[in-house]
């Protein structure tokens, strides 16, 4: 409208202009924006720094591990380990015999009603056999002992030299030239040092032939045992024994073609970590940094925890969301969420003091003898740690699953009821499927939560660095394990900064970090991919 015409209208005050307050040249809005933006940036920077730090500290490990493996070979430790393994395999067979003896004694005392003395007397022939069998390995054992000393000496020499080199480097760095020159370093001539070890090869050959013929002869003359079942075991022993002797030529060939100078490739340094089945540190012989036992420990404990926490958490979420009265909801929700307020060290303490004992006592009750692995005697094991971790995962899974159920539009529920569905049918056929992506991601986040949990597993998983024995089915759940988080917490305080052990722990941390990242990423992906479009 042209302004001229509006002149007749009463003048209205319309003062909407206002001077902006400026602060350091910024308006208030810009200040607020800067503040919150800055916070977001800090979190990104921290994440980047942590990742960078992990990678930087961890990356050195593979080079050091390569040197570690190289020395293992050059100093002849690898050579001696071939022989040691041969001797150890023999020991395993002797243990098998001991097991058969125990069963036979049990048979005599329980079934035949003989006294212990009579049972032992009946086994005289068997004992002579065992004695002969186990004595057969003695020459090899002696040889391993002698060679071990030589190899150890070479390795020590090498390490002393390395230390001296380090010393000189430091002196040079400090500018003390004269003192640096005084540090004497003799080159280790591996070829010459290994000569005594190689010189033992003909003797080994003779010894091996004797061992071979003794064992073959013994395998052909197994003593008779009273029960067919035990006799079968002895026949099995004979087969195992022959197989064992069959490996001898292979060992001889490996020793003959063994070359102390064969290079260790970078991938070997990598795979000996990633697929290594041994985590052995601060040993007198050789350190091994294989993550497999720790990884398996972490995964098993987490899986046991999830197996318990998923039904509990999701079940409770369904109950609270679909069935509970408002009063029950008010009571149950805070209770479950309160569990996450318990410090994990307190939970671990509870695990050691109460749960471990309780589960062990439970396992010894005859009514539960059918459970695999029951009864057991190790109080701290996968099961104990898994039960406690389940407690930690339940609030996470419950809260997120409950949210997911809550996000299912009410319209679905009404439509289902209007078609004549019962409450259970509606829940199972409509509500749960519609929120499945949310529930799965809740479970994944629960997994991420337990796999990173440290205190409980450190206190309750038993901390035995070994791959559980899977041959007995589910009995492995009562074996103690060590975990990735536990090993870092336990050993990081004691290692020398910059040492291979220190770096190995960082790589374990890195693996843990990547695993958690993967789980979280997967959870987010699932939520985004399968989110039901509402409206």
């Amino acid at each position, binding site marked *: 409208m042209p302004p001229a015409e509006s002149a007749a209208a009463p003048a209205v005050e319309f003062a909407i202009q206002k001077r902006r307050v400026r602060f350091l040249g910024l308006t208030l809005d810009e200040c607020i924006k800067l503040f919150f933006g800055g916070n977001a940036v800090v979190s990104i920077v921290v994440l980047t720094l942590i990742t960078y730090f992990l990678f930087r500290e961890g990356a050195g490990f593979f080079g050091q591990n390569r040197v570690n493996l190289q020395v293992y070979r050059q100093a002849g430790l690898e050579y001696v380990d071939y022989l040691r393994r041969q001797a150890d395999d023999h020991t395993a067979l002797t243990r098998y015999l001991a097991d058969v003896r125990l069963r036979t004694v049990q048979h005599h005392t329980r079934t035949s009603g003989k006294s212990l003395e009579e049972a032992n007397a009946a086994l005289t022939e068997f004992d002579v056999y065992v004695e002969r069998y186990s004595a057969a390995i003695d020459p090899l054992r002696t040889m391993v002992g002698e060679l071990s000393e030589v190899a150890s000496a070479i390795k020590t020499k090498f390490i002393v030299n390395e230390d001296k080199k380090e010393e000189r480097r430091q002196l040079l760095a400090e500018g003390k030239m004269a003192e640096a020159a005084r540090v004497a370093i003799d080159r280790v001539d591996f070829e010459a040092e290994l000569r005594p070890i190689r010189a033992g090869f003909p003797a080994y050959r003779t010894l091996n032939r004797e061992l071979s013929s003794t064992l073959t002869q013994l395998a052909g003359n197994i003593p008779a045992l009273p029960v067919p079942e035990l006799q079968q075991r002895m026949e099995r022993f004979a087969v195992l024994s022959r197989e064992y002797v069959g490996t001898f030529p292979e060992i001889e060939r490996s020793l003959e073609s063994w070359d102390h100078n064969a290079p260790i490739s970078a991938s070997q340094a990598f795979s000996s970590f990633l697929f290594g089945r041994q985590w052995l540190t601060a040993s007198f012989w050789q350190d091994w940094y294989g993550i497999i036992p720790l990884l398996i420990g972490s995964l098993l404990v987490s899986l046991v925890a999830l197996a318990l926490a998923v039904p509990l958490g999701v079940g409770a979420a369904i109950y609270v969301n679909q069935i509970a009265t408002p009063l029950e909801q008010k009571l149950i929700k805070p209770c479950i969420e309160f569990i996450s307020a318990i410090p994990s060290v307190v939970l671990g303490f509870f695990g050691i003091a109460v749960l471990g004992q309780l589960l062990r006592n439970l396992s010894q009750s005859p009514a539960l003898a059918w459970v695999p692995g029951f009864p057991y005697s190790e109080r701290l094991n996968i099961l104990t740690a898994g039960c406690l971790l389940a407690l930690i995962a339940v609030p996470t899974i419950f809260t997120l699953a409950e949210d997911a159920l809550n996000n299912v539009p009410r319209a679905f529920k009404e439509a289902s009821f209007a078609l*004549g569905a019962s409450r259970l049918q509606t829940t199972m056929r409509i509500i749960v499927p519609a929120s499945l992506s949310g529930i799965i991601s809740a479970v994944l986040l629960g997994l991420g939560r337990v796999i990173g949990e440290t205190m409980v597993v450190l206190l309750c998983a038993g901390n035995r660095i070994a791959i559980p024995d899977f041959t007995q089915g589910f009995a492995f759940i009562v074996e103690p394990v060590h975990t990735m988080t536990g090993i870092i917490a336990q050993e990081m305080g004691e290692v020398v900064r910059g040492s291979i052990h220190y770096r190995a722990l960082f790589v374990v941390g890195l693996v843990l970090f990547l695993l958690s990242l993967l789980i979280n990423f997967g959870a987010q992906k699932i939520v985004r991919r399968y989110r039901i479009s509402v*409206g």
Partner: protein
Amino acid sequence: MEPPAATSPGPAGPASLRRPATAPGATAPTQAGAVPTTHPVIDIENLDFYYGASQALHDISLSIDHHRVTAFIGPSGCGKSTLLRCLNRMNDLIDGTRVGRGRIRVHGVDINQPDVDVIELRKRVGMVFQKSNPFPKSIYENITYGLRLQGVKDKARLDEVVERSLRGAALWEEVKDRLHESGLGLSGGQQQRLCIARAIAVEPEVILMDEPCSALDPVATAKVEELIQDLRSKYCIVIVTHNMQQAARCSDRTAFFYLGRLIEYADTRDIFTNPANPQTEAYVSGRFG
């Protein structure tokens, strides 16, 4: 406000409105004849209904006929949707609701009696909602959901029901090639017709529609209205609507509610051309509401 006007039948109001309900257990034969005869299916007597302490319905009495489309109209909050949801007891899902005085009889059976199985009731009295709400499943699974709940597993029977229901809802031609795609991929109008197909798949006698077109565009609305006309021959349809033209276009009888009371219930033609009550006249002529 004048005292609760009970049903005030218009000049053409059939005497059957006042007739007592048919004997309990007597089921009406549903015949899709060319000229369907009519008889009351639902009888509501002096119904009071409460949300917690507040009374939402006051002394409602009316009777709904088979093979007819009955429209409930009135301004927001007048209780028309509440009454609709009473008819298949969907209000049970809301905490704190209760029926005070009065009775609702379907085929003579009081549906609020404790021995009534509400699941059976809802199979006989289906419902279509204001916002189309297909399940996040395939079209096929959406239609067969009700039957599967009843334990029907026979593939041939399910296939047949899917085709019949979709044809009944005038959707077959549009979706027959993508029965196994998600029902959420359809357009708004198609989704609503899918919901209607889902409701008729369990072969109810009564279909309650709670503002079925309020979220649809005019073209989709026209299709659904056409569908309602087609369904009339087989079902008893009760439709709640805000749209008075819609009530005028597709219903046979119209009930006008105001503040939880039934003001007038008569043939649609009379309600819109010759209302007995001045409030009704004010509302249908657009002077309030």
